[in-house]
């Protein structure tokens, strides 16, 4: 349990650093560390597959792409968009609303019972696969459709229009 | 446009066919060629300091100051070599031959100090051509490497030929 608290503390610390870091590249790197702590949490839960997929997909691919684009954009201090007062007020309002919702939700549910696994090996590949392709087949397939449509959309955006070009 | 020499060849570059486009056959062919070199071809390296390639006849290496048939230094410190040197590599200090030194120096005037800066020298051989006394020839070896700049200034100790009967 103490490991959990330590790692959780690290996650939050790095997450705070993500938004407080001045340099966007640094903040991405903190985000990488945050995701790394998530991976450790998954391992603690004995969810090896999710852990490693989180590792590969989020840390290894998505954040690399983030970093990639950030490096290409020239983010100097003076090119940072002007923050007008209106934007600031809107941000405060938005953040406040979120806080209210979160607090309300916490109050409504109260402290949840610790989650107990029926099967501690649920996170291993075999079991996970069985559950995914059995009980949760429909949501699984639907999410794959979602990804497919996103992919087709990306291809469409990227292809040149043969008529105009 | 019509080419004047009529030597121009028009090369057709056809699009690659499927066999060429899968690359792998070409890759395998290339690999087999390099493997042949790896296995069968002998190396052509000359292992330099131990083994030397023969120099050509007109190779210009390190200078040597010659002696005549009686073993006397031929150089008379006329300075023509220094004058002709495009790299200004040669300096010398002349001295008068004392009585009793006739067996050492052929002319009445000789070079007491004769230095060539081998870092400046471009081994053009103009000094050799300029010399009226046939005193300097670039018939030596390659000038060896060294660590300090001062060690590249060759004095008479290194340049003058060894005395005759020794």
């Amino acid at each position, binding site marked *: 349990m103490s490991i959990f608290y330590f790692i959780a503390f690290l996650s939050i610390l790095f997450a705070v650093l993500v938004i407080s870091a001045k340099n966007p590249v640094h903040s991405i790197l903190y985000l990488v560390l945050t995701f790394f702590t998530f991976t450790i949490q998954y391992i603690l839960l004995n969810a090896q597959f999710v852990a*490693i997929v989180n590792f*590969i997909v989020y840390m290894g691919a998505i954040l690399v792409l983030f970093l990639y684009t950030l490096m290409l954009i020239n983010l100097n201090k003076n090119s940072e968009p002007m923050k007008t007062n209106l934007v600031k007020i809107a941000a405060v309002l938005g953040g406040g609303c979120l806080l209210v919702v979160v607090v309300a939700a916490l109050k409504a549910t109260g402290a949840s019972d610790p989650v107990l696994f029926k099967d501690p090996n649920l996170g291993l590949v075999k079991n996970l696969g069985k559950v995914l392709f059995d009980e949760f087949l429909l949501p699984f397939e639907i999410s794959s459709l979602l990804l497919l449509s996103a992919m087709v959309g990306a291809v469409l955006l990227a292809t040149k229009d043969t008529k105009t070009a | 446009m019509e080419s004047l020499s009529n030597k121009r060849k028009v090369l057709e570059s056809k699009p690659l066919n499927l066999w060429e486009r899968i690359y792998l056959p070409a890759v395998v062919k290339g690999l087999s060629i390099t493997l042949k070199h790896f296995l069968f071809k002998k190396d*052509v390296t000359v292992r330099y300091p131990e083994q030397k390639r023969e120099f050509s006849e007109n190779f210009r290496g390190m200078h040597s100051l010659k002696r005549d048939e009686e073993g006397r230094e031929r150089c008379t410190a006329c300075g023509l070599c220094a004058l002709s040197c495009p790299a200004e590599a040669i300096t010398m200090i002349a001295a008068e031959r004392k009585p009793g030194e006739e067996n050492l120096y052929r002319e009445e005037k000789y070079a007491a100090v004769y230095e060539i800066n081998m870092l400046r020298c471009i081994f053009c051989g103009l000094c050799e051509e300029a010399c009226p006394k046939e005193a300097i020839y670039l018939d030596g070896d390659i000038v060896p490497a060294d660590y300090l700049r001062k060690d590249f200034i060759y004095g008479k100790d290194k340049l003058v030929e060894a005395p005759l009967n020794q």
Partner: protein
Amino acid sequence: METGELIVRLVLIVVIFLISLVIAMYSTYAERKIAAFFQDRVGPNRAGPAGILQPLADGAKMFLKEEIIPTNSSKFLFIVGPSLAIMTACIGSAVIPWGQQIQIGSKLYDLQVTDINVGLLYIFGVVSLGVYGIMIGGWASNNKYSLLGAIRAASQNISYEIAMGLSIIALLMVTNTLSLKEIAAQQHGWHWNILRQPFGFILFIVCAFAETNRTPFDLPECETELVGGYHTEYSSMKLGFYLFAEYINMFVSGAVMATLYWGSYNYPGMDWVAGHTGPVIAPLIGTVVLFAKIFLFIFFFMWVRWTIPRFRYDQLMDLGWKGLIPLAIANIIGTGLWITFFK
């Protein structure tokens, strides 16, 4: 885990770590020698007999050279880059089974640091992490060539990771497990996976070349265009780390390919050998066989390097996205059909 096993593991970790370092060291030597032989030269032959001490001399040189950190670099990340590169290169070998179980006393011990049941994915994760070392180093140098090298490395790695993953999926359909230990054990004798997945292997090895940034895919450090690529600004041992990481990566990917496709420690006639030599020697012979396979792969890496010229960047991307990925998907479908109809 009781003490005996713990000790064996610790010893194994240290030994594997040392072995990868030594192999990386001597890969640099082998690379130069092999390059020389391919080009009808002799290669390094001064330090020790036949130049055998050359890596030590190189190492000493690297350590003693002046360390230069560019003024406008971000210093911390500049140091993190090479450290990360070499760390990710080293931890990849943790899940590779180096041999069969070996009998010491009356107990059987695994010749594997750890057998996690998603071992294959673990290797993937480590490989995908490897690009961070390059990216961070390239960005932190604050040099346009480094940055371009880093960006090339990133996009290249991501693109080829996909094709690599897809080619592995086909392998998984055949093996039914993600654990490298089981995959190795399945290929007993001559039942090597290369016989079942020859096409997948070709895809995999092409991707492995790209992932290790070796020629013909070494565009991140393409010196004709990018000076030194991502390590332009690096000097001394930090440069050494980057170069070292490349060789360790080569070693690990050789080990992965040997394990996944070329039968790991298995060889035809191993049962006969095991019957004649007993439970201590036989696994060791298997380990030797595995290492022989790895060395062959390393040789192959070098062989290709000194044969094939570099791709152009758009050709690289074309090959990855329009060539390898569709082929890998076709391979998955083909494997699926084969499994449904012939098994």
